[in-house]
């Protein structure tokens, strides 16, 4: 039996930069590990998240798998947090929203400079792309948002310590950045 807080994390349409920034809390991760344990996350290799206290979502929603993962997190996590610009407004991946999806695929896999063996990937295992990239609050209810591209380690620390201690997270001015 453990009374530790369970934390799950995932990256949807993101670059894992937010996860890297999270790791920048450096040795504070030891203090965190004393009160929290990881469920599904890149460090545990657990495939599906079980019942959790906090779910951290990096990245927006660009394909069918992202929708499933996001819904699974919402179902299992008491508190769901949108981490970083992509989860909050679609971020860089959402810049494809202004290009027709077909044109986008053709440019990437057939017509682009340096493309060899041109073909649009069509393996049935691949998740279907959505027409547009969406911020996660357009798909599920989100409880908190951590702005930044990525949010700094101090933002992670400020938010998580507040949530773990049952306080409302709030950021001092210096930590609020959208870039």
């Amino acid at each position: 039996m453990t009374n530790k807080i369970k934390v799950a994390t995932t990256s949807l349409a993101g670059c894992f930069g937010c996860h890297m920034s999270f790791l920048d809390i450096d040795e504070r991760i030891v203090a965190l590990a004393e009160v929290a344990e990881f469920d599904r996350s890149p460090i545990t290799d657990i495939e599906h998240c079980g019942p959790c206290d906090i779910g951290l979502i990096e990245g927006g929603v660009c394909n069918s798998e992202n929708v499933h993962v996001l819904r699974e997190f919402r179902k299992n996590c008491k508190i769901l947090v949108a981490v970083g610009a992509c989860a909050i407004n679609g971020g860089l991946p959402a810049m494809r929203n202004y290009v027709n999806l077909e044109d986008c695929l053709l440019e990437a896999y057939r017509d682009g400079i340096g493309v060899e063996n041109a073909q649009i990937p069509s393996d049935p295992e691949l998740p279907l792309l959505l027409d547009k990239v969406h911020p996660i609050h357009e798909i599920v209810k989100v409880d908190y948002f951590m702005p930044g591209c990525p949010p700094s380690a101090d933002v992670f620390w400020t938010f998580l310590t507040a949530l773990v201690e049952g306080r409302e997270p709030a950021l001092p001015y210096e930590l609020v950045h959208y870039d």
Partner: protein
Amino acid sequence: MTGTINLDGQTIPFTEGQTIIEAATAAGVYIPHLCHKPGYTPHGSCKLCTVKVNGRNCSACTFPAADGQTVISNNDELAHDRRRITQMLFVEGNHFCPSCEKSGNCQLQGVAYHLQMYDNHFPHFFALREVDASHPDILIDHNRCIFCNLCVRASQEKDGKNVFGIAGRGINKRLVINSPSGQLKDSDIAVDDCAAHICPTGAILIKRTGFQVPIGQRIYDHKQISEVALAAEGGSCSRPAAALAPSQEVAHDK
């Protein structure tokens, strides 16, 4: 006529003809705003400066101060409304701050930081908007325009030209350029014009100046827009931005 108004419980003086925001600024009280700028005809379009005057919502940048008024600017309800207004500005345009060279120097962003805005709340429009990079020195990214009308006013009132206009209504509203082709290169704008430097967002940018001050060292990275605005707008502020050297680019923001 002069007199006093009561602003958030503080008695402040005003002089004949002053709006509420002018009286507040002179007294060192910041009221969030985007389309207002000292020295320019009030426009009253962004509604960010909404205050309660004797119980009714009014735009502080257009509403004249009058003796004995009770004005509320600083309460939770107005802070909430201002945050929602700012979120609407973010979702109706396409604001990807990490890819914007104005980031850190942008008043829209500065106001959002000040309002502790962590998310955009509404579904995004992802509206299709153009970039006009036709001019050799000036770039317009329509994705970032908030229709504050400042470039329109600057061109007419300060530059004696008529380069910009706002056309259409609601979601079809757009910034138009007064030139035969509709492109900036065929207008008579010059890089020294006030209109080229007044944009509070990254919609109008001067080419080849973008990263002279690195991200992280820019104005709203360290200073709240409330301090910056009061320092810049407390006195008379009609100095043309074009008089500033490029290395002082952040100052264009004020």
